């Protein structure tokens, strides 16, 4: 009888007995090793906000409690009282959402929130936020540097400023419907301010998706400037040559300037900026120049008169 046998295998190909007897354990070890390498990546892909990495740019000051962060907001699109946004912001539909990047860029276009969450690794940045009104918070934002997004769209040499525009949907935002302010809300930064690593595009806070009243689904956080410059619910980012007019400049030009850097030496016409109330604290505390971010941003303003350029 002809029995075909393979002549390709030799003795040396035989699995050593020890390994053969422990094959199940080796298999389990292999699976465990692969899973532990892949799991964070898979988890991160499925849940980028919850798996944000820690950032060296974070402060280690005490955090403002989440319920204060989400119930004390200036977001006039939902009403002018601090408690209005928490009550009325749920009417804004935040998915799907796209940002339009246009103007002095080589590759203008739109980018969806899905793509943003996929392409830009997220960090947790604990920043101080100082409102021009004289109160402040410490908030654990989740986001990434604006510079990463801008670089993808390649600003050209005429891009001297970045303009930001907020969503315009009176049918979904009661304050817009009641015309309590001139909408849509607009803000702007100089290109070097926008490219500074501190400048954050935030998509979450306290490890969760950004609540509507905090500017969902994506907002700016510029921690060394007064809070109104940290525009919420962004739909357009436009690179421009001339300094853009911001909403508060238009509303009250002698009170609100383009730069609006936190500066205890330059008072608001109607109140002092020397002190602030840290929400949750009993007594007021001294306001810091550039909200304590002098090291990172003071050089941007060398030679400028910050009293004139308020």
């Amino acid at each position: 009888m002809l029995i075909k046998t393979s002549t390709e295998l030799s003795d040396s190909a035989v699995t050593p007995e020890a390994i053969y007897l422990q094959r199940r354990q080796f298999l389990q070890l292999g699976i465990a090793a692969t899973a532990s390498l892949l799991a964070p990546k898979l988890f991160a892909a499925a849940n980028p906000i919850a798996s944000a990495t820690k950032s060296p740019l974070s402060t280690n000051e005490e955090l403002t409690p989440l319920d204060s962060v989400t119930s004390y907001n200036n977001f006039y699109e939902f009403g002018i009282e601090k408690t209005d946004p928490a009550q009325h912001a749920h009417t804004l539909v935040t998915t799907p959402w796209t940002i339009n990047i246009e103007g002095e860029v080589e590759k203008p276009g739109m980018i969806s929130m899905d793509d943003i969450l996929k392409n830009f690794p997220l960090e947790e940045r604990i920043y101080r936020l100082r409102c021009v009104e004289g109160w402040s918070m410490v908030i654990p934002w989740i986001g990434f540097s604006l510079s990463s997004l801008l670089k993808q769209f390649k600003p050209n040499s005429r891009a001297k400023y970045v303009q930001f525009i907020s969503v315009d949907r009176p049918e979904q935002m009661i304050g817009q419907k009641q015309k309590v302010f001139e909408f849509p809300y607009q803000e702007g930064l100089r290109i070097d301010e926008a490219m500074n690593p501190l400048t954050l595009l935030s998509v979450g806070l306290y490890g969760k998706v950004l609540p509507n009243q905090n500017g969902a689904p994506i907002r700016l956080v510029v921690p060394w400037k007064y809070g109104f410059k940290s525009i919420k619910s962004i739909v357009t980012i436009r690179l421009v040559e001339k300094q853009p007019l911001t909403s508060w400049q238009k509303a009250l030009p002698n009170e609100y300037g383009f730069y609006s850097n936190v500066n205890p030496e330059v008072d608001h016409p109607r109140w002092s900026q020397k002190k602030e109330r840290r929400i949750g604290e009993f007594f007021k505390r001294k306001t810091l120049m550039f909200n304590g971010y002098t090291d990172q941003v003071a050089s941007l303003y060398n030679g400028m008169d910050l009293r004139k350029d308020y």
Partner: protein
Amino acid sequence: MFKPSLFVLCLFPILWLLWRESMGQLGANPIEAMIRELGLWALRLLLLTLSVTPIRQLLQWHALVRVRRMLGLYCFFYAVLHVIFYLWLDQSFDVSDIFNDIVKRPFITVGFLSFVLLIPLAITSSNRMIQRMGGKQWRQLHRLVYLIGMLSVLHFWWMAESKSRLAEPWLYAIALAVLLAIRIPLTRLFLKTSAR
């Protein structure tokens, strides 16, 4: 029966405020909320005090004059609390900060002035003081309440942070305007009817 009940009723605002503060119901910025509410009650009591005379004359309810002093003193009570909370919790009794605020911030200038003018009215509120001063001089001094009313409303108006938050100050301005304007025809009427 009426006066003691009113006395207790006028304590209700501060008690309710302190209770809410202890329960954490005053929001993220409770100190601002307390200062604001104490000021509002001082203003409301001022308006209530100013409404005694017109109501008296319109309804011929002369007994109402007996509660006018209590309402006025309670206005002062809430004004004192409003000012103390501001000096202590807002400014930590820092004299130079307070001085700067009074001198540079118009709404605080008029608020401070309004409070200062209330003090002689509070001090001269007792029967003994009325006797010592004499009715005519006492009435002249206490007409300061009209100016105090106007300064207080202005204080509230200027404090409203942006143009769109003037709804409440408007209400108080109108109420004050009515209470002041109504005195002109009523006073003439009263003088005519009481002339003997």
